[in-house]
């Protein structure tokens, strides 16, 4: 099969891609600066070195604020993942429950956070809890979708075996359904992990003393002088997102070594 995370090839390739994109960035920025005023060009895409310069100059701040955001993201992500997993399990347990809940789960995702903010703050005066709640709220959906897909994809033979063995409902889940759903769950987590960073930032825009989101808004608000800083925050949040993704991939490999793509020897590799 394809793709072994453990092979150096993969990680080297991530670096190659990042490098090529950065070079592309500088190239486009250079081209933009050829036929636009510096402000206009920088508003579209500033020089990479300008962004790097800001990143290095303010690396301390960025690290600090990044850590705040990442902390929130991780907390919200954990909450959202748990909530998503729980709901998916509940929904897979009974068809009627799925039919009852799914329209509401879906519509919950259609409500923009700003609409909820007054209500959430009205209920929970604690800003920290409000953040966690909102972050969880944004991340749980991909996890439900993918976990549910995984739970439903469990093989019929496996289910029959569990049933014939008189397995309890819990055992059905712990021994059969959840392991079959794990690969799916990890796809959901991989989508949700970078999203958690986003939602953490979104929550920061609803009023927070610090975090990448605050930096982002301020840098935008103060205009051209801060353009390097603005893009530096974007790069950092993308970096955090990518690292969370990589981290989840590592856990996936560790927890689900049986997946075809991780098998050290196997068929079809000729």
């Amino acid at each position: 099969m394809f793709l072994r995370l453990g092979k150096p090839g993969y990680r080297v390739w991530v670096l190659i891609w990042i490098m090529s994109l950065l070079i592309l960035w500088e190239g486009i920025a250079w081209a933009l600066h050829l036929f636009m005023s510096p402000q206009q060009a920088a508003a579209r895409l500033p020089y990479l070195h300008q962004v790097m310069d800001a990143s290095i100059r303010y690396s301390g701040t960025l690290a600090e604020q990044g850590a705040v955001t990442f902390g929130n993201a991780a907390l919200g992500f954990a909450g959202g993942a748990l909530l998503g997993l729980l709901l998916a399990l509940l929904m897979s347990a009974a068809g009627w429950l799925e039919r009852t809940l799914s329209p509401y789960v879906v519509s919950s995702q259609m409500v923009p956070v700003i609409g909820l903010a007054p209500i959430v703050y009205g209920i929970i005066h604690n800003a920290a809890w409000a953040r966690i709640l909102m972050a969880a709220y944004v991340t749980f959906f991909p996890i439900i979708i993918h976990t549910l897909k995984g739970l439903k994809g469990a093989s019929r033979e496996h289910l029959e075996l569990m049933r014939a063995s008189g397995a309890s409902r819990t055992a059905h889940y712990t021994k059969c359904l959840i392991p079959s759903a794990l690969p799916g769950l990890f796809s959901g987590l991989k989508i949700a992990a970078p999203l958690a960073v986003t939602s953490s930032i979104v929550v920061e825009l609803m009023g927070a003393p610090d975090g990448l989101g605050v930096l982002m808004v301020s840098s935008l608000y103060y205009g051209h002088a801060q353009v390097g800083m603005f893009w530096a925050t974007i790069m950092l949040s993308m970096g955090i997102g990518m690292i969370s993704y990589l981290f989840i991939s590592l856990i996936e490999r560790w927890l689900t070594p049986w997946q075809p793509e991780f098998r050290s020897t196997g068929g079809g590799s000729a």
Partner: protein
Amino acid sequence: MMPPARIKSVQAANAVIPIDGSRKDTEGDGIKLSALFRTLLPWLAGAACLTLWQLNFFHVLLSLEAYQLPVPSAIVLSIRDNAEMLLRYAIYSGTEMLGGFLIGSLLGALAATGASFFPNSGKAAVTVLSALNAIPIVALAPIMNNWFGDGIWSRIAVVSVITMAAMAVSLFKGLTSIQPQYDELLHSLAASQKQFLWKLRLPHALPSLFAGLKINMSTSIIGAIVGEFFIASQGLGYLLSDQIRLANMPLAWACIVIAALLGIVLYELVVFTEKKLLPWNQTRTVG
């Protein structure tokens, strides 16, 4: 007979999971309900919630005021009073949403498909692409405004960017997590890369593709609405942010309700298409 010590009693009696389309009864499930009630339940639950909401149950429970959370009747009245504008804005935002959804999902699918041909670099590319999910809309909206102007295209671009990664990650998983025996079969038939894709990978990945579409359908609603917060001068998101600042909660919630309805209808469309397109996937599923 077997030694009694190894028999566990009927303690696990509710451990039944329906397995098979042919099973006529779902008797014995942990939570039983009559068939009629089960079909009606989603509606009943909704009606019950609305009634409680209308009767200020949530307001009392969570000590909320009408100016924080309007009652359904106020929202309905507001929808009626502003029907013409809401419809116009729904079409506008719906266009952004669908446009972005289609472009983003397509780009994500193309990226995943391309990536599936290259073992290491492909997976790495999807990893890098996934970082798109980490750019908040607040940052994207100004950037896209600078790139694509202040018209509808800047929101379409926002939605495209935020829907790309989810599709790429979902579909890539589906395209590459294939049991070796199927790979071996096509390999032995000297199938071309293109045939691997069309005959094996894509059909196998269809459930993942639909998982991606479902996630994107909700993401794109949020993308369009929140994208409009920034500079749009029309659309449901524009109206929502404006009305929230004006503390005109019934109209703000009218926007939310219309957006949610729009989203649910389109979401159900995706679910319906999935059912039509994957007949082999139906009867074997649990629950």
